[in-house]
């Protein structure tokens, strides 16, 4: 599986993590191209359904990333996201998804370096896990 290139879908909030990604870019930091960013206005709008769809369509990992607690532009969206991730982490491993395939992080708007670091580490971890079952098997 040396040529395995993982796909990671990252739902990032407009105000913090997406801005951090922007900062990483303008600071000319590099991070693996395996990460596909989906910008959402707030992690609080990430329905568990989005995560499920990404995983079932063959994403090897999914990241949800937003503002640090207390920093949410909409006051409490990130707390709601945390509960949904908790829910998914109780649901998905029952059907054989490694819990490490779903991650939640807080990356603030000024954390460009942190963003690049997290993306690198996340992709390394998912590469280690190998391709997701949804990628290799037919999903009805």
């Amino acid at each position: 599986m040396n040529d395995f290139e993982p796909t990671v879908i990252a739902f990032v909030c407009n105000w913090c993590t997406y801005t951090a990604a922007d900062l990483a870019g303008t600071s000319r930091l590099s991070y693996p191209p395996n990460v596909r960013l989906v910008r959402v206005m707030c992690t609080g709008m990430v329905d568990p359904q989005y995560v499920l769809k990404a995983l079932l369509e063959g994403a090897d990992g999914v990241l949800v990333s937003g503002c640090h607690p207390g920093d949410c532009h909409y006051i409490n969206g990130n707390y709601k996201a945390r509960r949904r991730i908790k829910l998914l982490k109780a649901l998905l491993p029952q059907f054989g998804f490694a819990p490490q395939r779903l991650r939640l992080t807080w990356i603030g708007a000024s954390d460009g370096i942190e963003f690049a670091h997290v993306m690198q580490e996340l992709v390394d971890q998912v590469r280690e896990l190998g391709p997701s079952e949804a990628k290799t098997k037919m999903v009805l």
Partner: protein
Amino acid sequence: MAKTAMIPVDNGLLAGLREFLRQVLARPEIAAVLVPCQLPMKAMVMPTLVSDPEQLSAANPLAPVFPLNGARVVTRLTRKEAGRTVVAVLRACEIRAFIELVKLKQGRREELIIVGIDCLGAYATKDFLPLADQGIEELTGRFLQSAMGEKEGELDGIGLAPACQACVNPVPDGADLIIGLLGADTGRALPVTAATEKGESLLENLDLPGGKAPEGREAAVAALVERRMARRKAMIDATRALTDSLEKLTAYLGACVNCYNCRVACPVCYCRECVFVTDVFDHEPCQYLGWAHRKGAVKMPTDTVFYHLTRLAHMGTACVGCGQCSNACPNGIPLAELFITASAPLQEAFDYHPGRSLDEKPPLAEFREKEFEEVVGIK
């Protein structure tokens, strides 16, 4: 101290319960009674809103079947102020589902008095239909004998619905009035206990002899729950082994035709409009071709596993285990087993007991500042 009265049943359980309901309906403050009634044209029992006491002779809240979860019906009666009070006779799982819907503001606890009867379970609707050919009242009698005895409801080799066999909440705790079958001397009288003030004020106005819950009740409840616990564990273990990988889950759901009947039948699938029937899923023809091209083959209709997992994520914490999803499936997929199994860890994760109390908010409707920090980070 909860007030208890006795419902005389020397002419049979059904006759006693019907007379009790007649007394309830005779109260001027009660507009109607919602109770499962035998249909005149078919050997089936359906929730029926009765205002004429004569019609209560068809009432049969003990029949071993519930073709739908009554919670949804009760929300239709209570979602807005009606000006009159209705009494609803419900099973324990129907009450729990109703409480979940009240939390979501789809029904109201006002203008409603819930009468719950200890639930001995029910057959799957498809198993009930042939059994009922011999007459529902006779079947009800045979069922009660079997359910209170050692056979636990098994009749002619047919056992209770799997969800009922694994149900560990047979006592209708959320009711205003609780009629106790367990541990009662069913040849003489059934205890009816007021669990709330509303229940108590109704009970006080009925012409029933006072009494107290039989001494054997607690032990009988505990023994039933213990047997059900063992069944539930066995069911969960077996289902988990059948679905512990995506490939196995896909096989488990292999007969699904995306009819979404399970979602319609589910009392706690709370969305007024399900996303799966909105235009979000009205894909362009070229999209299907694109997927087929990317994956080599794509089963049509698409998104079957996605649908079931989404449903689990949306209503799993509220699943009351009533088993109506299995009843609704045209292709006999054991959905109740799957949903009860997969919901258990979700409810555990939030220490949530669906339908237990109106004071407990649905887990995804609230949050705390400091909690679940273990799910954050990439370590």
